[in-house]
């Protein structure tokens, strides 16, 4: 309706026909809506601003390569082990969660559909997305750490459990978007169902699946609680996720934030900047991938 009349006429009509109190209420509502957006942007700007401002001074080549200092209240040392830890542990989680998640989604959409098992799995996957990450950490503590000790793999297990339901649900959405006609065309050429899935359906939904996976990875990389119970604390570089404690950026931030020492807090800001950069990069990349896919399909 608002397209049909030119704005000035519309405003005249509006002013002439609408009572004052109604106009005021409408105005207030508009202020509320726009104000809400501003209120949300302020903390975002503040947080990112502080992280940038306070963290940038920490970054250097030494920051990424040196081990953590022995004495936390002094400056010096770097976050090398933490950066490597975050990357390795998250990678380990991804390696486990991605194939499981994609296969599970394939079952849900291509085989199970509306059947009882599929509905149950779908429901439970939704429930699982709501499980607090600390509970995942405790869970892995009881089934892995108590038996196999503190190591990076425990962290990977916990993060993998966090990623799995996200990947299943977003992948299922992407599979749903693949038009059924493509599957029909594949069957009509004498292709089996499983090969149709691997040669037609998955390639067609690849972009969307990648985007969803990257969002899951970004979420996992930022988690702290599940790691606190499972990976222990290491100061030196440990490349073996199966043996011995490791550390990660998130855990470092948490630990250093609780100390009263300036040097430690500065390290926390530096680690925060590094972590936020990694997470933002993945999130933005995920958005770029999904809009690239959208554009290609519209061509």
């Amino acid at each position: 309706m608002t397209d049909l009349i030119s704005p000035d006429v519309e405003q005249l009509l509006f002013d002439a026909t609408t009572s004052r109190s109604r106009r005021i209420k409408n105005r207030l509502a508009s202020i509320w809506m726009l104000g809400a957006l501003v209120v949300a942007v302020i903390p975002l700007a503040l947080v990112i601003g502080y992280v940038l401002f306070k963290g940038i001074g920490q970054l250097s080549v030494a920051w990424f390569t040196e081990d953590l200092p022995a004495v936390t209240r002094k400056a010096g040392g770097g976050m090398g082990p933490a950066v490597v830890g975050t990357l390795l542990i998250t990678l380990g989680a991804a390696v486990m969660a991605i194939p499981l998640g994609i296969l599970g989604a394939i079952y849900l959409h291509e085989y199970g559909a509306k059947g009882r098992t599929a509905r149950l799995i779908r429901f439970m996957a939704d429930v699982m997305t709501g499980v607090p990450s600390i509970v995942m950490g405790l869970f892995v503590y009881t089934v892995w750490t108590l038996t196999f000790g503190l190591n990076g793999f425990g962290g990977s297990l916990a993060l993998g459990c966090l990623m799995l339901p996200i990947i299943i649900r977003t992948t299922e959405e992407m599979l749903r978007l693949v038009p059924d006609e493509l599957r029909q065309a594949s069957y009509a050429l004498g292709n089996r169902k499983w090969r149709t899935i691997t040669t037609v359906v998955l390639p067609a939904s690849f972009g969307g699946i990648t985007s969803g996976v990257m969002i899951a990875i970004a979420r996992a990389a930022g988690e702290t609680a599940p790691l606190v119970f499972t990976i222990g604390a290491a100061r030196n570089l440990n490349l073996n996720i199966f043996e011995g404690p490791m550390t990660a950026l998130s855990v470092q931030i948490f630990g250093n934030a609780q100390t009263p020492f300036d040097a430690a807090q500065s390290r926390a800001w530096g680690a925060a900047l590094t972590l936020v950069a990694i997470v933002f990069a993945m999130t933005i990349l995920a958005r770029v991938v999904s809009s690239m896919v959208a554009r290609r399909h519209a061509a």
Partner: protein
Amino acid sequence: MTLLTHDDSVAPAGGGDASSLLEPTSGRRGDSVFKIVALAAGLVVLGILALIAISTTREAWPAFQQEGFGFITSSTWVPADGKFGALAFIYGTILSSFIALVLAVPVSLGIALYANEAAPRRLRKPVVYVMDLLAAIPSVVYGLWGIIVLAPAIQPVYKAISGAVGDIPVLGWFFNGDSGRSYMTAGIILAIMITPIITSLSREVIATVPSAQREAAYGMGATRWEMIRAAVLPWSRGGIVGSVMLGLGRAMGETIAVALVIGSQSQITAHLFEAGDSMAAVIVNQFGEASGIHRSALIGLGVVLFGVTIIVNVSARGIVSRFDRRSQGA
């Protein structure tokens, strides 16, 4: 395998020998194998959830056994004396989450409505981007900012408010205290963290309002706000409630940011500006040095948290699907 006899008066043409169709093919098994593998992957979800419930309860059992119902009804938590009553933490979890909802819901709803109804086209995408970025920031970074920046900065504000209304009845019951790290601060940080979730879910629901409904309201001369009240809100009410509950679930389970800013005091008070504790925060703060039954008690807190968040989540999804007009084909 017998060859079939054809009527030989008809000239055999290309493809006339279809008998090879009857030969067994090797590919058929591939489909069943693939299906089983995919099913197994899906069942892993069920397996993990069951395992979580079983193994954590088993580890927490000694504490449950010792305290019985006192675990959740008593507020005495003194590990040194072997006393584990979690009431104060349950209270802290609920209070900080409640504050978060009170702050986040009006903001989230406003943004969702803005993005769908009031924003010029060019701004819609950026609004979604901003929400994505807010959601992407790890909770530990929010916690870091909270404890180093927010808590010290807001403490004088608390002191001022407390000084002004602390003695007035009703207001003074709540707005009292002067600790930078407190329920209120935790509530604020939580509000910032759950806003993106509530916003994006509400926005999805609001976007499904059929334009026919909007046009009907406008056609009767409604202002935009009146149209929203008449067409958009009633339609999306169920979905919005559901998304708020999902935000609640997230707030209750949030650990790290809360642990950093809630103050870590084991007490129950209505004074919002005083320090308290939450279940998740206690777990993460005390786990490192705990052993024996203390550790079981902390895991027990995890079990309680698990149960509570599942209930909230399941109810939320139930509400959303019951009110989801899309699935009812309306």
